[in-house]
Structure formats: C-alpha cells, structure tokens
C-alpha cells in the first residue's frame, strides 16, 4: 500500500531555528563561506532536520505522535538550501511493507529533493493505526 505523498519546504530560516533547537551549530548549515570551503555546493540542511521532517510524515501517517517504535535512515546526498525565500523542497513517500500480528507496521520510505534520493534505507516501524 502506497501512503499519501508529503512535501516539506526548507528555507535558511528553518535551518537557523533547527540549529538553535537541536544544538547543532555546525557552520555548514548556516555559512556559505564555510560550506563551499569544505567542498559543498553551499549551505546544506542538517541531516537530522531532514530526518525530523520525515519523522513528521511518519507520525502523520500513523495518526499518532507517539507511534514510532523504530526509525532509521542513511544520509546519501546533501540537501542544498539556497539563500532565497523559496529554499528547497523534500518529497516523502512510503509503502507499507508488512503488518505484524503484534500490531506493528513496517514502512519503506523514499525521500527526494530535486528528483534525487537524499536518504536511503529509510525505514520505520510504527504501531499499526487503528
């Protein structure tokens, strides 16, 4: 079963807010000068910010804020966030892999930015929605 696609917009302001809330002040997430100096195309989103947005999609699909039992991802490509009002967008889709008798549902998740996968092996186990 395919779950409804969810999209999330990411702007520079979001990265600043996430840096403050999470305590991750790595300058690759707010300084173009620093980011390009280490070979990145420019400021990139915190991998953990992208993971948090995907976590929102998972809890929304689950229909409960506390339904996540297991959640893991691999960060494969950076999400570049341009310094403009539009920023960028990530698109999150998922398939239900299976549902166990113990009341758990496994999801295989796909996350893309500009048509390219930015996470791989993104999987979640949630309590099966009632």
């Amino acid at each position, binding site marked *: 079963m395919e779950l409804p696609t969810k999209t999330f917009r990411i702007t520079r302001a979001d990265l600043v807010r996430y840096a403050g*809330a999470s305590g991750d002040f790595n300058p690759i997430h707010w300084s173009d000068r620093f980011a390009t100096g280490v070979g990145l195309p420019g400021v990139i989103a915190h991998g953990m910010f992208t993971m948090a947005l995907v976590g929102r999609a998972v809890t929304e699909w689950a229909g409960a804020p506390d339904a996540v039992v*297991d959640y893991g991802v691999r960060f494969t490509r950076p999400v570049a966030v341009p310094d403009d009002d539009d920023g960028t967008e990530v698109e999150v889709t998922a398939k239900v892999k299976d549902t166990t008798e113990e009341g758990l549902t496994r999801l295989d998740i796909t996350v893309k930015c500009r048509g390219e996968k930015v996470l791989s092996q993104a999987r979640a186990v949630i309590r099966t929605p009632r």
Partner: protein
Amino acid sequence: MPLDQSFVGRTYPPTAPYQVGREKIREFATAIGATDPAYHDPEAARALGHPDVVAPPTFPVVLTMAASRQIIDDPAIGIDYSRVVHGDQRFAYTRPVVAGDELVCANTIEDISSRGGHDFLTTRTDVTTAAGDPVVAVWSKLVVRGEA
C-alpha cells in the same frame, strides 16, 4: 591513518542526567514544524496516557549529539571532526521521551571499519532513566572522510 579497530566495544561512563523540559520539547517541535497537540499541550499528551508533553521521534539527538562528544573528543581514538559527516542514524524506542524525564546516555563503540579511504564509526547510545530503565537506543554512523 585509519581508525584503530581495537576500540570496538569501548564503553564510556554514563553522562550526567539530562532534564527533559516541556519548553525544550515545544521549541524542538516548533523548529521542525510539528504541530500535533501532544508535543505542546500537557492535557493532549495526558489524553494519550503520557504524564506530560511527548517529544518527536528524533528529539533524543539533542542529548545523544552532546553525549557523543565523549567519543569525538577521545584523544585515544583521534577523530578529525572537521572531516566527519553523518552516515546513518537510527532510534529504537522502548517508550517515547516525555517532559520531566531525567535521562542518562551510555555510549558504546559498536563498529569501526575502513573502506575506500574513509573510516566508518558506529556508536550506540543507550538512553535510560537515571534509575536505569531503558527509553531509547540510538545508533549513529559517522563517516570520517579520507584525505584524498
């Protein structure tokens, strides 16, 4: 020089207890745009059977990232943090984190490997209550990029 694989299995002393605050959960939820009332309103969380507001699934990174400094700053291992990128991340929950929790992180180095000139370091952080009850196990794979 590749990371020394003899550090696999190394454990670190538990961190000082972290007091999970209601406002910190609200701040984190707001920063990721998570509007579910259970992240913000204690009454909504209680209606779901929790003692106070619930943290979003990736919230524990606030604690575990700080706790991982034990490993990153361990001179015996010698990680060049300027070359570190985040490879993998996983959370396996016993129960959700809620405001009022006092949580302790215990780090273990689970795996070290080298491939294609890069080092891969997998850490497990067992997040428990101060009394030792499990809450969430957190795995991080760090990639230390080679010089080439």
